């Protein structure tokens, strides 16, 4: 063996440099809200316009309508056809995107600062004067159906699709993806898409977010341009729908004959990001499955080698959240062992909470990683957008980090007990049912097997 050199001892570290989430300047311009955040030295500026068209406005049975309309905004304007519009965006060095969620409709463009006024003009044109031709809307509808086929064929995405309707009551919009399901998308009509645009797009409840090197930009002038283009209607923001979680513990197995891995999800409905529990929940969930050193990966990956890695996630959905205790794939042959092991690890955490050491390390990580997370304008704009989506003050990230730093072991234990228990958790397994179906019976509640 080669000689091993003697290395220097591990360095002792000083404390971290002070850092704060960038200041967000919030004010109103001509009836819309403006949030501006100056981040000098970055080449691209991120602009977002959030319109108050949440997916909860979709009529029952037409879930996915708002998202289809949002997607159709990329298909050209009354002045420019789709190709000419996209070419104009690209020539500016820009990128244009739209999406729809529980927080509203979101149109974003980013470009080098000197081209932002022209880029915002294009965004405004797409948002306010979209073409919305039948042919394009119908094509996007069919494409969406093909995309659903693609999602269903992906074991991990299939697991996500199966989890959702088992977490929420059928009447809760959260039970169906924002983009709609196969059943609801098939019936969406162009007239209805145009109607949802006409009925809801307005000044009231609209926010323009600008993040980047704003030194040479007149953000208020940009906002005024957007505001004046919007219908003069000051109806305020649509409130969040009450969450209707389902109850009871259960399991579903989706049969994929011969699958070499089983995609797993374990989840339940959790509290909203606006609740005081949230910072401690961040800590407890990071302990469970935040990274490779988490309780789940330490056993399932690093000790057993059963998986490439699993993760825990908390995903806010305006007024509530989805707590995913576990998301990931395990080797088929060990599925039942992996589920039982994971279940045990989750129960232990829910019962006892994280250790003092885990709380200290996790808080240090979650607080310490902030300056990295919010390095670029795109990331800061994303953080502001997520606050908007959850009805939080736009500087909430700073408040949240401050609260996070104060999380104690007993806070984390209380939250783990209240929110990470598995009494009403849903287990989804997408894999070879012959290998896992019956073996799960009686261990994790009732087991529903699909497709066997």
């Amino acid at each position, binding site marked *: *063996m*080669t000689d*091993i*050199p*003697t*290395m220097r001892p*591990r360095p002792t*570290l000083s*404390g*971290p*440099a002070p*850092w704060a989430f960038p200041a967000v300047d919030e004010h109103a311009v001509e009836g819309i809200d403006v949030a501006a955040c100056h981040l*000098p030295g*970055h*080449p*691209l500026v991120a602009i977002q316009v959030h319109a108050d068209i949440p997916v909860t406005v979709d009529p029952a049975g037409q879930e996915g309508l708002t998202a289809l309309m949002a997607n159709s905004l*990329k298909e050209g304007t009354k002045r420019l056809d*789709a*190709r*000419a519009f*996209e*070419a104009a965006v*690209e*020539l*500016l*060095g*820009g990128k244009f995107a739209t999406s729809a969620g529980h927080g509203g409709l979101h149109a974003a463009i980013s470009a*080098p600062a000197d081209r932002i006024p022209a880029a915002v003009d294009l965004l405004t044109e797409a948002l306010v004067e979209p073409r919305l031709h039948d042919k394009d809307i119908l*094509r996007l509808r*069919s494409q969406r159906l*093909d995309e659903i*086929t*693609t999602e*269903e*064929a992906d074991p991990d995405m299939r697991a996500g699709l199966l989890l959702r309707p088992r977490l929420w009551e059928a009447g809760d919009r959260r039970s169906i993806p924002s983009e709609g399901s196969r059943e609801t998308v098939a019936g969406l009509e162009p007239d209805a898409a145009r109607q949802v645009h006409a009925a809801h797009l307005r000044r009231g409840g609209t926010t323009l977010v600008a993040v980047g090197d704003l030194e040479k930009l007149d953000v208020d002038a940009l906002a005024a341009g957007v505001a004046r283009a919007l219908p003069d209607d000051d109806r305020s923001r649509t409130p969040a729908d009450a969450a209707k979680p389902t109850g009871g513990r259960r399991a579903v197995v989706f049969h994929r004959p011969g699958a*070499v*891995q089983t*995609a797993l999800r374990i989840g339940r409905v959790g509290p909203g990001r606006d609740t005081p529990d949230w910072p401690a929940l961040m800590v407890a969930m990071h302990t469970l499955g935040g*990274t*490779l*050193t988490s309780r789940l990966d330490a056993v399932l990956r*690093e000790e*057993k*080698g*059963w*998986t*490439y*890695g699993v993760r825990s996630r908390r995903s806010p959905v305006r007024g509530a959240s989805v707590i995913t205790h576990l998301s990931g*794939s395990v*080797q088929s042959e060990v599925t039942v062992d992996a589920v039982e092991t994971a279940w045990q690890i989750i129960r232990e955490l829910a019962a006892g909470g994280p250790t003092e050491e885990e709380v200290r*390390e996790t808080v*240090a*990580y*979650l607080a*310490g990683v902030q*300056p*990295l997370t919010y*390095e*670029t304008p*795109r990331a800061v704009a994303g953080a502001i957008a997520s606050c908007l989506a959850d009805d939080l003050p736009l500087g909430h990230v700073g408040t949240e980090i401050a609260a996070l730093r104060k999380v104690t072991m007993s806070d984390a234990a209380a939250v783990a007990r209240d929110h990470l228990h598995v009494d009403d958790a849903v287990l989804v397994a997408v894999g070879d049912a012959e290998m896992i179906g019956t073996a799960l019976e009686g261990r994790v509640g009732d087991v529903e097997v699909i497709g066997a």
Partner: protein
Amino acid sequence: MTIPIVEHTLDNGLRVVVSEDHIAPIVAVNVWYDVGSRHEQPGLTGLAHLFEHLMFEGSANVGSIEHFSLLQEVGASLNGTTWFDRTNYFETVPVHAFELALWLEADRMGTLLAALTQESLDNQRDVVKNERRQSYDNQPYGTSWENLFEMLYPEGHPYHHLPIGSMADLDAASLDDCRAFFSTHYAPDNAVLGIAGDVTPDGAIEAVERYFGVIPPGPGAPDAPDGTIGPLDEEVRRVLDEEVPNEAVYQQYRCDPEGTPGADAAQVALHVLAGGSASRLHQRLVRDEELAISLDGGHQGTVGGTGPGVLVVHARSGASLDAIEAIIDEELEALGIDGPGDEEVARAKASLERSWLEHTDAVMGRADELCRHATLFGDAERINTELDRLHAVTGEAVQDIAARHLVPTNRAVLRYEVAA
């Protein structure tokens, strides 16, 4: 915008490239080892990538997964990746933890063999096999790239196989193979250390000297086999009847390697054809004919004598792959005969420039590019002429590449067909 660069080489051969930037109190540390799957021996495919996993399992002074836990505790983001041409390890850290990052990288560069055990090898072999199952074998279209590289390059060519390797070779990898791999390739004179962020070049280089200076140089790593290869003279075609949601066609063309005017022209040509929704193929296949859900095009970025140009089209349900391929061929031919329009070239350049700005805006993107240019082209300063090379691409060059390289005889075509 010029990216400031200071370079230094340690006595043991470690090349250090530092880019100072005080925008945020963070620093990116990136180590590129000049070893990827193209350096692997027959029967040992996947070894470079398996080894990447072992680099996180501890070294003389760092316990198993302590690399992760120590860095996480300071709020770092970190990982490693393996590609055809190189393996890299990187972390962005709050600046007070800069020396911790250097210490951890130095410890595993200098002393990994002190901690490498059969147990860690067996465990990470299982993890990698599960990575393979997850990303390739249990995923619709998951084996597309494996097929395409196998089809485009002959047995024995350095790009014939992917970094993930085969299950059989992963099973066969022994502790001695791993030790030999480390001793050959993981040496300071076979690595580049890129640093970007809130440090001064003098201070950073002094710290690098302190932590890495003691590591002896390696025996001299062998170059990868020469991958230089001319165009194909006949199309290679394969049809897979795997279970997939929608039919798809994947094409790879033998183009010039990254870092040549031919590759730059191919990148622009493929953007004109399939980059974004203003591209020719998007207009025809997605909008006009409604045959495709999505498409993509680009250059794979390999440097070893050849670089594949890629076109991927996922079909709408019920659409004919023959009709899709006929339209692709029409557009390829038209680009070769008439060349692109001026606006198309301008659009492609603006879009590719934007991607570059986005990538290098974050300190990690910058550190990665410093390493890429230093490792693969021997010149870190090349980072500052990247956009000049892009803007030097002419419509004539795009037309020429389309006519010579983006032709049916010079490609591998993989089709996924759904049984009726």
